[in-house]
């Protein structure tokens, strides 16, 4: 059951992320907008992160057959996804993400050499959670200005991904409980909510035009 849900989640995540990433890239090529460039990086990273984890499960299932996915592969996938979530939050103008103090800068990199991959996974899940909550709140606030109903759906999608991420992280406290499958179902729902408004954007008759790149 858990294996099946993991596969569905990672496949849906890969496809939804790729679809949105390609749409953002077409937009960037046509308009040269830096916002669309950041969204391209964000969703290609999210898609790649899901793909890495999905590949890990596939390799485990068909080749290694050890019964559980290699922890380091899962961690790498989560780190790549976190980069994507960072770029979504960054598009909403996170200006002080990195610490300004020299002391914090100097020690900031140290934990990466001191912790195991399991702890790294916890760290990046919690960072993802914060970035997703930030993105969800900013997107919801934007609804006040543009009254675009799609923003509500994207906001709910990001919020569901955040809740799923939190439950996934919390399930380490209660392994073998129902928390982890629930977290995956919530994340799948979040990805679908994210894709619904984007799928309605009319893209007909839009073509690549290299001459427009310099605008």
């Amino acid at each position, binding site marked *: 059951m858990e294996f099946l849900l993991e596969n569905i989640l990672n496949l849906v995540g890969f496809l939804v992320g790729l679809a949105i990433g390609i749409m*953002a890239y077409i937009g960037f090529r046509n308009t040269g907008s830096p*916002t669309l460039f950041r969204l391209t990086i964000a969703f290609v990273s999210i898609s790649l992160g899901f793909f890495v984890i999905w590949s890990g499960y596939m390799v485990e299932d068909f080749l290694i057959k050890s019964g559980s996915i290699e922890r380091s592969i899962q961690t790498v996938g989560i780190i790549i996804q976190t980069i994507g979530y960072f770029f979504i939050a960054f598009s909403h103008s996170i200006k002080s993400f990195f610490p300004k103090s020299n002391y914090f800068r100097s020690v900031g990199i140290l934990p990466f050499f001191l912790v195991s991959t399991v702890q790294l996974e916890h760290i990046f899940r919690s960072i993802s959670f914060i970035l997703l909550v930030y993105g969800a709140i900013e997107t919801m606030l934007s609804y006040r200005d543009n009254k675009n109903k799609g923003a509500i759906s994207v906001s709910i999608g990001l919020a569901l991904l955040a809740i799923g991420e939190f439950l996934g992280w919390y399930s380490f406290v209660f392994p073998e409980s129902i928390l982890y499958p629930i977290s995956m179902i919530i994340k799948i729902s979040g990805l679908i909510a994210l894709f619904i408004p984007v799928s309605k954007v009319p893209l007909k008759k839009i073509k690549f035009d290299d001459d427009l790149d310099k*605008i």
Partner: protein
Amino acid sequence: MGEYRTQMKIIGDILSTTRDDLQDENGATVTYLIRKANISHSRISTLLKTLVSQGLLEQADSQGSNRYKISQSGREFLQAYNSFTKFADNFGLNI
């Protein structure tokens, strides 16, 4: 306080004016565009030069003044701009 407009939004406003809101068939004058797009003379001069050089606007000399009309490339750009503005709106962002 007025709403902050990105460079892209200002370009979109200029192109929309030259497509949908022309004074006459000869095109829009700089003064008319300044009023419609709500932008300073120095800034619009630079933007108009860029838009003409990129082929998004066509420049014509009519009745002793420069007039601007949207080109076919400009129409395609504007269509893409409108579509992706909606796309970015869904994420609560401006392009």
